[in-house]
């Protein structure tokens, strides 16, 4: 209903869509970039692009996957542009406390920051978005073997980096 209304140019309907989806998209971008400001910047661009092309969406029920695809493409484009100034700025700011970022999120971003760009993307898509290897392969254009290896190594690395959290959760269970 909201998607259909937005397709007719209804700003309020689109604002409601943004309100409902912003947590998901902004968290996805945070996990990908590790930079809170950059993540919000890219999320803004994703929603702006969504507003501009929402009329092209044929099936309103496919809004969420369509938006996810747009977000991941936005991140891939950003990586391709490879702006060195921005890259230098990207510091995985997990040491500075943020009001809206739980400590676990900061530590997770810090651990993800230790991975390569491609490995981080594969791990985020697998764990945050719960995508299958085949879906990640299709979306990123990386070969299946590379996707699997990135996820396997990334998982191992995260397990090492986040051992304290994992040991704690093991104690609880």
């Amino acid at each position, binding site marked *: 209903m909201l998607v259909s209304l937005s397709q007719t140019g209804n700003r309020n309907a689109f604002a409601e869509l943004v*309100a409902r989806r912003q947590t998901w998209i902004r968290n996805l971008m945070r996990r990908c970039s590790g930079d809170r400001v950059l993540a919000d910047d890219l999320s803004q661009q994703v929603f702006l692009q969504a507003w501009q092309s929402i009329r092209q969406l044929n099936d309103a029920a496919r809004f969420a996957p369509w938006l996810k695809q747009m977000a991941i493409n936005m991140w891939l484009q950003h990586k391709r542009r490879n702006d060195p100034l921005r890259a230098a700025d990207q510091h995985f700011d997990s040491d500075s406390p943020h009001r809206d970022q739980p400590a676990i999120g900061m530590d997770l971003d810090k651990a993800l920051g230790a991975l390569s760009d491609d490995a981080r993307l594969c791990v985020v898509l697998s764990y945050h978005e*719960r995508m299958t290897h*085949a879906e990640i392969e299709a979306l990123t254009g990386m070969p299946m073997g590379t996707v699997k290896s990135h996820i396997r190594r990334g998982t191992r690395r995260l397990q090492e980096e*986040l051992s304290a*959290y994992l040991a704690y959760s093991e104690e609880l269970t």
Partner: protein
Amino acid sequence: MTTERNPQLEALFAKANAELDDPGFRLELMRSIDRERRKTLVVWTAFVAASIVCVALFAAPLVSALKMATSLLPNSLVSVEADWLQQLLAPVNSVAAAIALGFLALRKLYRRLFG
């Protein structure tokens, strides 16, 4: 296809998600949408205005050029005495035919050289 994930890490990812529902993000986005809309409106207005100016400035010379072209294009290249022969050769014996043949020849040459 099965995709194995570490359940503890999966839970950690789920816990790490912050609730980000501040209205500031939405307001900033709606402002950007308004800015883009205004920008599009300005560009279209400028385009329409420029088109109107162009039409006003070049309407008369454009119409004269079109008139000249329509009167020139059917002219025969070679005069033929016999009426029936002139009509038979009309599709190839005209300025328009010469231009069309020239264009086709140039296209073929271009494709042969660079195709």
